[in-house]
């Protein structure tokens, strides 16, 4: 089993990267670094590289701040049930939406005739393209990752430690500073790196919003290939992207590995939250969150509106024509996407649980974990171009099949399943297995009765992430779709370049609904199977 996994990793992780490197460093079969060096020496490449780093840093800071605001409010400000639901929904939407959705809404809200800048504020010459909009759009798309990373941590801290600080006579501010914030620092750093990596890899937002003066690496690599027919140049640019991405990934691993700052094991400690914020601060927090929530709902409202009128901005007559396009012309893409998602989902879930349970139990487990994470750590552009280069010629001829897309999804989006499995298995002592065995249960029984229920949530988490990404990812798969197998997200991009904004919006709404239904269904199923209400929504960035 182990050697099979290694073989698969060699084929679908190492081989494409190797081929990408070869493509970047050879010219017509001979080794020649000059073209690569020339590409690197262009000032535009350097500019794109620096822009990417700048944008990623800013998104990391802003997104982490927003995530902390939300997490702190939920953990401390005693929000009501409705408010909690609003916050959860607003943080869920950006994570399960197809690309471009918020970017498009931005364009229509903030341009010279934008609904907000012109319609509400009355400005004449507002400009929407550039760093500001790209930054805000990306931060809004990815801050839920920070929220999800920080919320459990803040909840856990609030339970006992802050209380102790209070009973020792500490003021609220002092408790916040010396206990809460200090204990959250590794979490904040982790959230920052998550967002940094997400922004570094983001292709869709800058494609729409960056404008002329903010070239970034993923879009430049895409333009190099699609516009200049320059696969080599694209390979070089995407390899450049690889350096900071891997750096951040390794940094994050070290950070998470040293995570010993919170004891999550304590049961039944109910946080008597609320003592840590004054009523006045509570209002500030709630209003701050509500503004963000309202803005997110506004963006999606705009999308829903665009999907339901004849011509956005010119003809507001309600119509179902756009949805008709989705369910007629769009049917092949929908069918392909669902078939691919349906196959990738169980395979990816299984693969995640398998690798995850092997990591702690075999020699070379650490290396196995690291290699299995590579495709996830890399920006989609790199993975997509790698697959394009590696699987277009024999012996591994796969272009034009759905298998290449499925393989891409499995090896790129299973890491959350892997990590959840590792985390779950780490929680229980080996002795439980041993106890089961020494009580007379066979290996099979032990696996079925002890291990399986334990990793079931991880399996479902894996399923849900692979499904969500199969429905929404574009950065890698845009290079892998073919005449025989196409995807909804690529249709959305095509619709937008065809100026069919209505169908693009209708497709997006369709994707959001399908993803919501399927993930809720998975959650219910897991509850049925395991008999407890497990939190399933393990969402990852694209």
């Amino acid at each position, binding site marked *: 089993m182990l050697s099979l996994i290694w073989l698969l990793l060699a084929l679908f992780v190492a081989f494409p990267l190797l081929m990408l490197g070869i493509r970047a460093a050879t010219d017509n079969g001979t080794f020649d670094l000059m073209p690569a060096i020339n590409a690197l020496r262009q*000032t*535009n490449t350097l*500019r794109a590289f620096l822009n990417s780093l700048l944008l990623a840093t800013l998104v990391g800071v802003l997104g982490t701040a927003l995530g902390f605001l939300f997490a702190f409010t939920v953990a401390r400000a005693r929000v009501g049930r409705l408010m909690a639901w609003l916050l959860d929904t607003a943080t869920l939407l950006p994570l399960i939406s197809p690309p471009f959705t918020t970017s498009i809404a931005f*364009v*229509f809200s903030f*341009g*010279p*005739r*934008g609904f907000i800048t012109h319609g509400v504020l009355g400005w004449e*010459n507002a*400009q*929407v*393209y550039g760093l500001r909009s790209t930054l805000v759009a990306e931060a809004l798309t990815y801050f839920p990752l920070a929220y999800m990373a920080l919320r459990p941590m803040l909840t856990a801290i609030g339970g006992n430690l802050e209380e102790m600080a209070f009973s020792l006579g500490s003021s609220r501010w002092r408790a916040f500073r010396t206990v809460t914030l200090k204990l959250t620092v590794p979490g904040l750093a982790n959230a920052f790196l998550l967002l940094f990596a997400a922004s570094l890899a983001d292709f869709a937002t800058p*494609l729409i919003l960056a*404008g*002329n003066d903010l070239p970034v690496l993923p879009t430049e690599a895409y*333009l*190099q*290939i*699609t*516009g*200049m*027919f320059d*696969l080599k140049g694209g390979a070089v640019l995407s390899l450049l992207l690889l350096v900071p991405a891997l750096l951040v990934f390794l940094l994050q691993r070290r950070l998470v590995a040293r995570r010993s700052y919170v004891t999550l094991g304590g049961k039944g400690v109910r946080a008597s939250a609320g003592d840590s914020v004054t009523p006045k601060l509570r209002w500030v927090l709630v209003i701050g969150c509500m503004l963000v929530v309202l803005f997110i709902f506004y963006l999606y409202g705009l999308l829903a509106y665009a999907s339901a009128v*004849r*011509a*956005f*901005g*010119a*003809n507001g007559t309600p119509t179902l024509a756009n949805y008709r396009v989705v369910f007629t*012309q769009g049917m092949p893409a929908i069918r392909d996407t669902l*078939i*691919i998602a*349906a*196959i990738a989902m169980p395979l990816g879930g299984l693969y995640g649980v398998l690798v995850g349970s092997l990591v702690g139990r075999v020699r070379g487990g650490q290396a196995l974990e690291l290699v299995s994470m590579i495709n996830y750590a890399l920006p989609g552009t790199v993975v997509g171009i790698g697959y*394009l280069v590696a699987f*277009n*010629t024999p012996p591994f*001829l796969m*272009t*034009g*099949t*759905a*298998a290449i*897309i*499925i393989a891409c999804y499995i090896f790129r989006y299973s890491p959350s399943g892997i990590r959840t499995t590792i985390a779950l298995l780490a929680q229980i002592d080996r002795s439980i297995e041993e106890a089961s065995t020494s009580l007379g249960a066979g290996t099979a029984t032990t696996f079925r009765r002890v291990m399986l229920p334990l990793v079931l949530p991880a399996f479902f988490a894996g399923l849900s992430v692979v499904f969500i990404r199969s429905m929404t990812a574009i950065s890698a798969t845009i290079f892998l*779709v*073919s*005449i*025989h*197998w*196409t995807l909804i997200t690529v249709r959305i991009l*095509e619709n937008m*370049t*065809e*100026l*069919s*904004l209505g169908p693009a919006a209708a497709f997006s709404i369709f994707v959001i609904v399908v993803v919501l239904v399927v993930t809720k269904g998975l959650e219910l199923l897991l509850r049925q199977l395991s008999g407890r209400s497990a939190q399933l929504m393990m969402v990852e960035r694209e």
Partner: protein
Amino acid sequence: MRHIGPSISRRLVLGATLATPFIRRAAAATEVNAYSIWPENYAQPVFNVFEQATGIHVNFVRFSSGEALARVIAEKANPQVDLLFGGPVETFTAGVGKDVFAPYTSPEAAALPGRFKDPHGLWTAIADDPLVFMTNTAFLKQHNLSPPASWDDLLNPAYKNMLQMADARTSGTAVTRIFSIIMANNKDENAAFAYMKKLRQNVQLYTKSGGGGTLPIGLGQAGGGIFFIVDALYTRQQGYDVQISFPREGIGSAAECIALLQGARNPEPAKKLIDWATSPAMQSLYVKEKINFLPANAKVQPDQTMVDMLKNAKVLEIDDNWAGANRERIVARWVAEVLNS
């Protein structure tokens, strides 16, 4: 039997589902695969008529011109499609340079003028598509402007940050525009680039696709831009209030083409599609299906409103050989001197 039935069929379905992704979809008796550069709402209706007439089914995916050509080049060793359908001639001349097309001369080609066909039969025109200036009517009124009638009109400071046009790295529209500007400057490249650098000051955004700016202009997010007439008329058909005008110095026009790929797996049906697309059978559908191209085939009567609109327009001929030979250099110069200036 009841107790066996469901389990067999379930197994069958499961097996079939698991097997599908690993095979290319089984080919029907006669079908042909194409990358279409024409949008779906143009390509689908004409392919439907083709299927009714010949029984040949056309599988197609739509990509913008740059992307379609990039794919064809990347897949050269293992072609996924038989045809490249639609898209401006400069994409096809670039493809000739990359050696991806196979020669085929349709019976209609003999009657076509030189700029509508490759001398070696590597591509053939199916339509003609002039560039136009498109401006937002409300924007013009607000700034007391009349529709631009000269290239220099676009340098007016009133347009500052209010023009949108395509990026030459991805869009055939943009490359045709740049060639037009060079032609309008009597092939004086330096003068053309000096003009484009000045124009850059007024450009709000270079879009990835040729028509990317039309919707923002329709909405008033931008004031104007340079587009193919097909996109400008589509914007108008959707109900946006825009003006279409031409520069008196002249503007370029691009033939829309079709080409057979080297190593095509279905060469015979592909050739039938080329014959059909270059003939009045397809091009007479343009008026009926509201496909805003001019027919390339002289036997087909073009749409009257388009004829009236173009009556006073001066269309410049772009030398395809020169354009094909200089495309890469000119685009690179544009990126270095205009885009990144």
